């Protein structure tokens, strides 16, 4: 009988030792698992941050490109003469003669402008087309003054002369 109780006591001791060992390793694994989970979250957060940074860089590149396109709508101070040549080309293409009467520097809402006074000569259709094409040119340009008169009359129509003043936005390089 005593031997049986001894066996039972030993079995209980072994059982308790096993339970304690199991609990110890269970807690250890749980603790390590929590650390791993925290690291995984940290890695995910870093990956998300990197993705956000890359998106921000891409957005910045796109924004820079769009800004450069918009800047192209303003005539650079140093490139007014090529712009005037371009204005003349518009008239030639549409069948009119564009003469620059005067160019005056100005300012609109804190930005530099050039007031461009032009004399456009040619058939009525060509003159009007030129005036419109210049008004809607890919620049920050506004038609501020316009008048037109028939300067020479003929059978096929009159030769018209128009006085047009445009205000063109400029930018400093």
């Amino acid at each position, binding site marked *: 009988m005593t031997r049986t109780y001894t066996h039972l006591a030993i079995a209980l001791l072994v059982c308790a030792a096993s339970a304690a060992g199991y609990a110890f390793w269970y807690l250890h694994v749980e603790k390590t698992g929590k650390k791993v989970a925290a690291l995984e*979250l940290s890695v995910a*957060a870093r990956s998300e941050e990197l993705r*956000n940074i890359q998106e921000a860089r891409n957005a910045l590149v796109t924004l820079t490109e769009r800004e450069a396109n918009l800047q192209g*709508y303003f005539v650079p101070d140093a490139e007014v003469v090529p712009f005037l040549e371009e204005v003349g080309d518009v008239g030639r293409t549409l069948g009119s003669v564009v003469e620059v009467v005067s160019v005056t520097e100005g300012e609109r809402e804190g930005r530099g402008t050039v007031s461009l006074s032009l004399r456009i000569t040619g058939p009525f259709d060509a003159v*009007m087309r030129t005036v419109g094409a210049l008004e809607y040119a890919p620049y920050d340009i506004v038609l501020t003054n316009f008048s037109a008169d028939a300067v020479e009359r003929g059978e096929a129509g*009159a030769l018209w002369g128009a006085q047009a003043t445009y205000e063109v936005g400029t930018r400093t390089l």
Partner: protein
Amino acid sequence: MNTDLNKYLSFLSKLSYGKRLQPARDWFVLVSLALLALGALAVVSVWMYLEGARPTGEGEVPTLTPAFSVDALDKTEALFEKRAEERSRYEAEYLFVDPSLPAS
């Protein structure tokens, strides 16, 4: 009182191991306890898994929100697109009749 004590003692004597070894009963009790412990562990494990799987919001990174608005850019680009269309109409579509010509 004495009768109650006797009943209690007789109940305890029933719980005593007995005079002979009974390995089958011992194993049955041991395996039953082990199965009960296993079931309890399974329940605890499932509960802990469900607790661990519940999102806590820790470590989450807020999604990137633009710090600026590009509405002005969009509007300006749209405006210049319309201007380009209008310019092409002036160049190729619109017809202006000379008002100095007699009306036919």
